[in-house]
């Protein structure tokens, strides 16, 4: 994204506005340092114009999106985010328990009316909150409760009419969650929506093959393809209004892919491959090591932090798994852990070298 595109995005999207404010705040701090002043001396007029512009820009962004303009504000925002998520989870439990406590005393039409109206009213509540706040903490909280009440709605309607359970409910819940995510820019709702839709696709495939839909994790390979598909969505679907959504797609896709790869390396008997179990496990283990290393490399090249972190975590997991199978049985425990520690240090040195080489290359390119 070019700086011009970034500024345009900052005028539309809260996440981009926050990134823009962070950059301005760092620039203000750097310009105030003596070291920078010794090489980049601004005239009093230039300094005053920069001060005026940066203050006005921060104030405008804060006014429009209610973003954090200082580090302390950012810390408080994180606390608010955690509090709203925990509050939403508690409210979801309250809605479900309240309904199950009293539903047996109601006639079927009343039960149905309550079940259908609750998510609709909560949806209206989400919209009401979104129009009155710019930070969307209450909006996110209510959106999660609306999703929980919609899940309760379809599950209990199924119970009332003794409907044979079907995977199609997962699609409805996923679509609802994603519709809310895109309307209000809520990353948690997007994550839940993607997981529900991934679950639906795997379950529909399983049911289509004549099996029970909720046995969809019996053959985990479906999830490899689905994880890859979700990961690649931001490559061809741009998100000009929700600039922080591509990282959610990448994280959900990469986690789905690598968790499945790890599960297959652990339990090869669940695979579609017609080989001996031990060969399947070896195959997925080697694939896991190579692909997680590739993910680290690609994440560094594309500057995708979440991919680098996911790749690193799974590279270490696959490596430790292999070492465990090689050494655990015949090696004294203290020696095993000592070797793991040495390996950790070796990895640290390797990453440091890669980092040094990158700095060298960047300096060369800058020169």
């Amino acid at each position: 994204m070019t700086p011009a595109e970034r500024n345009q995005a900052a005028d539309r999207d809260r996440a981009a506005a926050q990134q823009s404010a962070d950059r301005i705040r760092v620039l203000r701090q750097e310009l105030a340092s003596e070291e920078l002043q010794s090489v980049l001396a601004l005239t009093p007029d230039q300094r005053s114009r920069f001060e005026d512009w940066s203050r006005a820009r921060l104030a405008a962004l804060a006014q429009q999106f209610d973003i954090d303009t200082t580090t302390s504000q950012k810390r408080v925002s994180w606390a608010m985010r955690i509090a709203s998520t925990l509050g939403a989870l508690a409210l979801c439990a309250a809605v479900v328990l309240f309904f199950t406590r009293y539903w047996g005393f109601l006639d079927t039409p009343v039960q149905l009316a309550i079940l259908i109206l609750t998510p609709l009213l909560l949806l209206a509540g989400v919209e009401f909150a979104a129009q009155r706040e710019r930070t969307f903490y209450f909006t996110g909280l209510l959106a999660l409760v609306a999703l929980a009440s919609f899940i309760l709605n379809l599950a209990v309607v199924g119970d009332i009419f003794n409907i044979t359970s079907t995977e199609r409910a997962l699609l409805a819940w996923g679509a609802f969650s994603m519709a809310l995510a895109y309307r209000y820019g809520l990353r948690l709702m997007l994550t839940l929506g993607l997981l529900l839709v991934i679950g639906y696709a795997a379950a529909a495939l399983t049911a289509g093959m004549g099996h029970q839909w909720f046995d969809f994790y019996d053959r985990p390979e479906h999830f490899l393809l689905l994880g890859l598909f979700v990961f690649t969505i931001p490559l061809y679907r741009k998100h000009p209004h929700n600039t922080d959504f591509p990282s959610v797609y990448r994280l959900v896709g990469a986690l789905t892919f690598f968790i499945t790869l790890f599960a297959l390396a652990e339990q090869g008997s669940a695979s579609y491959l017609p080989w001996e179990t031990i060969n399947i496990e070896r195959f997925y283990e080697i694939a896991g090591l190579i692909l997680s290393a590739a993910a680290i490399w690609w994440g560094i090249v594309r500057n995708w932090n979440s991919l680098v972190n996911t790749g690193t975590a799974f590279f270490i997991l696959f490596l430790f798994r292999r070492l465990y199978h090689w050494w655990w049985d015949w090696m004294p425990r203290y020696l095993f852990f000592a070797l793991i520690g040495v390996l950790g240090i070796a990895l640290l040195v390797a990453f440091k070298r890669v980092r040094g080489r990158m700095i060298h290359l960047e300096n060369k390119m800058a020169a």
Partner: protein
Amino acid sequence: MKKTSLLVSAAIILVSNAFALLHAMRNRAGAPDAEITLTQRELRYSNSYADDDDSGVTLYLQWTDPGNFPWQLDVEKPTVWLDRSKLQQLGFACAVNPNNPAAGRYYQRQRSRRVFVALEYDGSAWRTWEEAHERAAAEQRARSQFKNWTDYSPRPSHLVAIDADLDPVKLRARHPDRAAVSIMPMVVGITLDPQRSKQVIGRIQQLPSSIHVPRPFSDEFRKAAKAAGKKDLSYRVHLRYGASFEPWITGVEQNPRAPASY
């Protein structure tokens, strides 16, 4: 913000509910597939579920799998109708001979399949099972290994699984008695039974076993449970199975005059 995505969100809720209600209506419209009366043996009401946190009343369907009483194997091997040829008809691959060394892994790797199963209530299948059960118990008693067999399974359900098919219409054609045979979607798994010289057999693994009790029948259950205290309830439940083979309750008789015999 444009209202389109808000309308889409509301539409998802309404359309999903409409689909569910239409499905329920279609199931209950027209002549029922089966109309059957079951007792407390087949539909178990557990008082422990009626705690303060859940006011709903649910009955749990119990059925008897004629081939699934392992202790009978010592004295008499019950007939298995869910055998290799039936399993092949249900879509399972049975190409490998059960005595082949690779058979264990071959059959273990096969996933369970969704099929339709016919369950007969209080019919010849039940009587055959009961006779075999009594013969086996008498033999066990004679061997002094299993003196009081009735303690093992005090109230077996008279609902016995008798046949299965991928097509419920074909299954109904084979079992036309709608007052005695109900057809339900179930999950069947394949296994290699080492106790039957490695015979390939099917196992019924799951069925939609919970049946919601609507008002006013649920009030009667709560009242009867309160009056009975720790004693077991005696009741008859009139069930209908619709076009989608999903049940609903049309009547409940608490403490019927002729209690069900075990």
